[in-house]
């Protein structure tokens, strides 16, 4: 991005946004939220606001393959302050099969044009898995396989973001026995840097944060080994779970609707995958509705962000927590017991010493003079 072009203090664009129906307060708020989510300082929110207020908004191409459109739907259904609308105002969504009016050859032409116009600059967002078996014939758009499309478009993109578990690592389509060979974007675009935002669906704010950071600063957030932004996937659900205190105290719901379940106890025993699932669900509410996530409504986390868990490990099966408490917190099998006081040692020494000493002295005395008065009495 051309940072010099940014006019930080110029909020004219923001004013335009206000004019377009979004309140300035809401506008800044959503930018702050996105900035905070990515871990940028508050000043970055103003920069982001300034950037997206420019006439030329960041161009986004949104491709959909083997998916349920859940991620798009979630994005659109963020309610307060209408993030869906806002995102559409923040970016220039140049291609999206769900949202665009165009269809057929017209749509394909739009895609080609968008790629051409923003060659090397646009953000490619992929939703859905890509089948690779039989040369990818299981998913075709305009007579081109998904495999072909994604490779082609990605080669021109400035950044590639895989949203949702399907695009990130295969998701539901890749569940055993995976007849279509459904794969995630990183598996297809080997060698190209891809940001994955897994989740079923993914939290739209995590997407927003990444998009705005790239649009504003031209950088991508720091990623973990599975290409997930660390700001959102650095910790397991378990670490920040609102029910964590019940886990620590050993209070577990045994089954749906029982006493513990009604009391809001830990769901681990019912197979909650929180202890192994990396996501920020407990910290960043979906659609700004507090508690609107599985654990929040009394259902166990099923590990949607984790390839090893979701659609693989049975629902009610418990998992080994990723991080157990350090061993130092537990008593050792050889816990130390018993103490010796100096006073006791001294007393014992005096007692034994007196007995032994008196005995030896007596024996000596006896050896010298057989009849002797005033001797010690021993028990």
């Amino acid at each position, binding site marked *: 991005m051309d940072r010099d072009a940014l006019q930080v203090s110029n909020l004219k664009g923001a004013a335009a946004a206000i004019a377009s129906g979004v309140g300035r307060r809401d506008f800044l708020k959503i930018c702050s939220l996105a900035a905070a989510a990515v871990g940028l300082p508050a000043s970055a929110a103003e920069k982001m606001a300034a950037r997206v207020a420019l006439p030329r908004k960041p161009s986004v191409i949104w491709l959909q393959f083997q998916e349920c459109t859940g991620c798009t739907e979630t994005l659109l259904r963020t309610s307060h302050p209408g993030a869906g609308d806002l995102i559409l105002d923040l970016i220039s969504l140049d291609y999206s099969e769900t949202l665009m009016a165009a269809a057929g050859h017209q749509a394909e032409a739009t895609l080609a044009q968008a790629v051409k116009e923003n060659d090397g600059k646009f953000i490619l967002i992929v939703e859905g898995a890509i089948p690779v078996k039989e040369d990818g014939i299981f998913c075709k758009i305009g007579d081109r396989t998904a495999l072909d499309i994604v490779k082609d478009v990605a080669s021109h993109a400035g950044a590639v973001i895989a949203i949702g578990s399907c695009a990130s690592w295969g998701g539901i389509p890749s569940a055993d026995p995976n007849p279509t060979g459904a794969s995630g974007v990183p598996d297809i675009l080997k060698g190209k840097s891809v940001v994955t935002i897994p989740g079923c669906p993914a939290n739209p704010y995590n997407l927003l944060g990444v998009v705005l950071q790239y649009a504003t600063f031209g950088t991508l957030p720091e990623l973990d080994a599975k290409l997930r932004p660390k700001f959102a996937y650095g910790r397991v659900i378990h670490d920040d779970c609102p029910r964590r205190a019940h886990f620590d105290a050993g209070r577990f719901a045994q089954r749906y609707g029982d006493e513990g379940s009604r009391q809001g106890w830990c769901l681990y025993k019912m197979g909650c995958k929180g202890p192994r699932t990396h996501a920020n669900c407990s910290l960043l509410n979906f659609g700004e509705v507090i508690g609107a996530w599985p654990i929040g409504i009394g259902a166990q986390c099923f590990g949607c962000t984790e390839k090893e868990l979701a659609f693989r490990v049975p629902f009610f099966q418990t998992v080994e927590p990723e991080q157990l408490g350090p061993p130092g917190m537990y008593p*050792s099998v*050889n*816990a*130390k*017991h*018993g*103490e*010796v*006081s100096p*006073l*006791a*040692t001294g*007393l*014992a020494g005096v*007692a034994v010493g007196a007995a*032994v000493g008196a*005995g*030896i002295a*007596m*024996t*000596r*005395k*006896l*050896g010298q003079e*057989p*009849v*002797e*008065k*005033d*001797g*010690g*009495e*021993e*028990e």
Partner: protein
Amino acid sequence: MSHAPATPVGGKLATPFFNLLALVALAGAVALGIRFAQGLGAASGMTDGYAWGIWIALDVVVGTALGCGGYAMALMVYVANRGKYHPLVRPAMLTGALGYSFAATSIVVDVGRYWGIWKIPTYVSWWNFDSALLEVALCVMTYVLVLWIEFSPSILERWRASGTPGQRSFAESAGPRLDRALPWIIALGLLLPTMHQSSLGTVMMLPYSKMHALWFSPLLPLLFLVNCLFLGYAMVVAESTLSSNGLGTRRDTGLLGSLAPIMGWLLLLFLGLRFGELALRGNLGAAFVAGKYAAWFWVETLLLLAPAVVLLGKKARTRASTQFGAALSVLAGGILYRFNTYILAYDPGPGWSYFPSALEILITAGFAAAQVMIYLWVVRRFPVLSSATPAESR
């Protein structure tokens, strides 16, 4: 076969030594108060790992063995029919009665729920015949009574001679009845120690998985029985020497000397059984593994082997210092064997350690002091010791 009759030693009771004992006993009494008010944890160094400490190992297990002088002497006089040892019986009975009484008292102090002890002899249907400890408890309780009855002629004698009219008439009427019953009581006094002293060995066979190989043995009952016998004889020698020195009573070096070979052979029997059994079971190697176990094992062995050699020699027959020194060594070795079987050889596992607390030691010391005090009071007031110059009793 005549010898000087036993007479009260008389004299002033409150000697400086006696007062010192009183001080120790008083400290023990204070410690006892803390134990009963605040529980065992406050007054002892015992833990859940080492649930038994010196109150059991010293006061009970060693204390009763030191009280076996009466048992050992009665065996000589009444079973072996060696009347010449008769003058040694009364003081030995007194030490035994005191030793066992204080052992029984120590049990009351040591058990957590002492107020229920009466249930042991009364609830016969509850008895668990698997428990060696039950056998010990019943025997010790009975034996305390038996010992005091065995000692009672001294008291009756004194009452008959110089008691109040009531005491005199009681002594007159009880004396003959006691005389008739005495053989059977004496026999009981011989049977009971045989039973419970061996059972004290059996007690430590139950936790065999926690016992060190050098002390655990299927022969523990037998070893404890032999051990209590030589400890009993050694106690007679030591006590006789001490009272002659401290109180000016008679010490028959020749008579005590004739006990020497018996002790010597008992010691050799003990060591033979111990080493033989260790060798037979292939555990003797543990005695050569450097460490505290081997060290204490050899200390015990030397403390018993050295006097065995001495006691079987000629000097022990005639020299008081040799007899006394050997007896002390036997006492030390024998006590150490019992103590080590109950404390050192018992290993509840890693992490556990035991050392008696100051209050715990004070209570044990207080009991020992009180015992000596009562002994001194009794021998000064009642006919226990022979004070005259010995007539040759051969």
